[in-house]
């Protein structure tokens, strides 16, 4: 298995759907790349990337500086305890890496406002899409950002 690009988010929560939109463009422009779109987290997301060599996850993140794009290393994600139905992504990756082959993971976060039930992206967040698409292509083409 090679590379996978995963667009994460809930398109019914306004700007939270940005990851899905980016993934849709990658799917069209880079047909040779495995692209998945999902609204999941934790173990299901970790299982989704298991077995690939490299994985890029694109997701909207809450935080000041709307529209800013940040690269996040999986090592910097907080591992949290299990409290509900799932474990967090960092813990899930840690667990699965002991059982199966896990990819190098790069996460691109696009800062969005507070998610609320709303259709479609705001103009400000939509405007970030070309930049994020380019970033994804750059990472895939020259391996920039991957540690392995």
């Amino acid at each position, binding site marked *: 298995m090679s590379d996978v690009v995963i667009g994460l988010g*809930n*398109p019914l929560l306004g700007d939270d759907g940005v990851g899905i939109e980016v993934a849709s463009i990658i799917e069209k422009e880079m047909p040779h790349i495995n692209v998945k779109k*999902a609204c999941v987290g934790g173990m299901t997301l970790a299982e989704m990337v298991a077995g690939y060599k490299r994985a890029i996850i694109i997701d909207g993140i809450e935080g000041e500086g709307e529209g800013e794009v940040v690269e996040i290393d999986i090592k910097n994600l907080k591992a949290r305890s*299990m*409290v509900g*139905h799932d474990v*967090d992504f960092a813990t899930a990756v840690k667990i699965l890496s002991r059982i199966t082959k896990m990819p190098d993971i790069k996460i691109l976060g696009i800062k969005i406002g507070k*998610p609320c039930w709303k259709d479609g992206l705001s103009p400000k967040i939509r405007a970030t899409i070309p930049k994020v698409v380019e970033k994804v292509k750059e990472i895939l083409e020259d391996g920039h950002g991957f540690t392995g």
Partner: protein
Amino acid sequence: MKISIDPITRLEGHGKIDILLDEKGNVKEAYMQIPELRGFEQFCKGRKAEDMPLITERICGVCPEAHHFASTKALDDAFNVEPTSAAKKIRELLYNAYFFYDHCLHLYYLGGVDLIVGDAPKEERNILGVIKKVGLEIGKEVIKHRRYAMEIVKTIGGREIHPICGVPGGVTKQISEEEREEIIKKAESCVEFGKFSMDVFNKIFESKEFKKLNEMDKLETYYMGIVDEKNHVNFYDGKVRVVDPDGKEFAKVDAKDVLNIISEHVEEWSYVKFPYLKDVGWKGLVDGKDSGIYRVGSLGRLNAADGMSTPIAMEEYKKFKENGVVHSTFGFYQARMIEMMNAAERMLELAKDKEITSDKIRNEIGEPGEGIGVIEAARGTLIHHYKLNEKGLIEEANMIVATTNNNAGINMSVRNAAKKVIKGGKVDDIILNKVESAFRCYDPCLACASHSLPGEMPLIVSIYNKNGLHKKLVRNV
């Protein structure tokens, strides 16, 4: 730069347990609170009814299939149409695949670890601790069979995790013979894995340690679940049955009448309501025959039913219920294991039925009106209720989700566990894990109950003594 981006950080709130200590440092009260992201029902208003199965499955990343079909069934009712026989079987097949992979996640990765490694240090309280006890190969089998079940969902539903096949009167996609054969192979493997898992977990359920856990919390409540015509558990369809704490049938109603037998109590400290049986009444957070509190989910279903629809699960059911109703909250795990077996067997049964390849997959719909759809989500009874206008647009939408149905039970279990394990004001990680394990039994979906985002949320535990806030712990590091 350190940034946390997992779904937790995008949530508006967090789960919260408040524990109140008395002067001696023992637990006086404990409350579990779940925040709410409001406005989902409002967001649905004016939408095309047929979009609802695709919209509502986005409420939550944990049980989208349950919302998808509860919504589809509400639309069947609202458009006064009975799905074709093949469509019902196709829906149920997909639904059992969802049940299988969801229960598998909880048993192996999450709650189940309380049973196997409950007293272990934090870093081993996950499947790694389980693997240490039962071997590395099991981890690979868990991944493989969860994948098989998800692939079945994708084959039938048209999309992984968030299916797109449910429409009023049937489904959108016919299953080919090749697909059916592929599903059979995967379902057969799931049945074998179910049997293996049954052996693994039955050894645990028979252990001294589990028997001790079983004594930790017993609540003599009513129980609710969907049953078929033989009063056997059915996840997808049937009548809603309620039994009293002695196991005697209290009510058995059609899905459309379920809202007539329950009411919702409001507590000012909780965003989430407390459903209870209307004819028994709300008596506070207490159990017993005079209190209208009922529980749902795996334990609720097995208690509310007289058996399981498939042979291996039925054998296990008989052992589980040999002394009648099971009130132990840790019984949720045993019931979950039996249901996982049942889901695998039922998947195979349905996959072997050639009718699922029929082209008669949809009936014509009638005029739009009002509809109620009830289904068993993995974590309990889920109700969708819509009112449509004459153009088929949503005028009102209301949902009662599984974790809301269990809200009272969860609160009582948390309180009981806290009272048992917190003494003299002493709190550490292992003690708190035991309190949390009480509500993990329910496999709660906080995101679902709060109509919030996918995934999980952090839990903040605040402990108050007579002088005010004594300790505040964010259970996320």
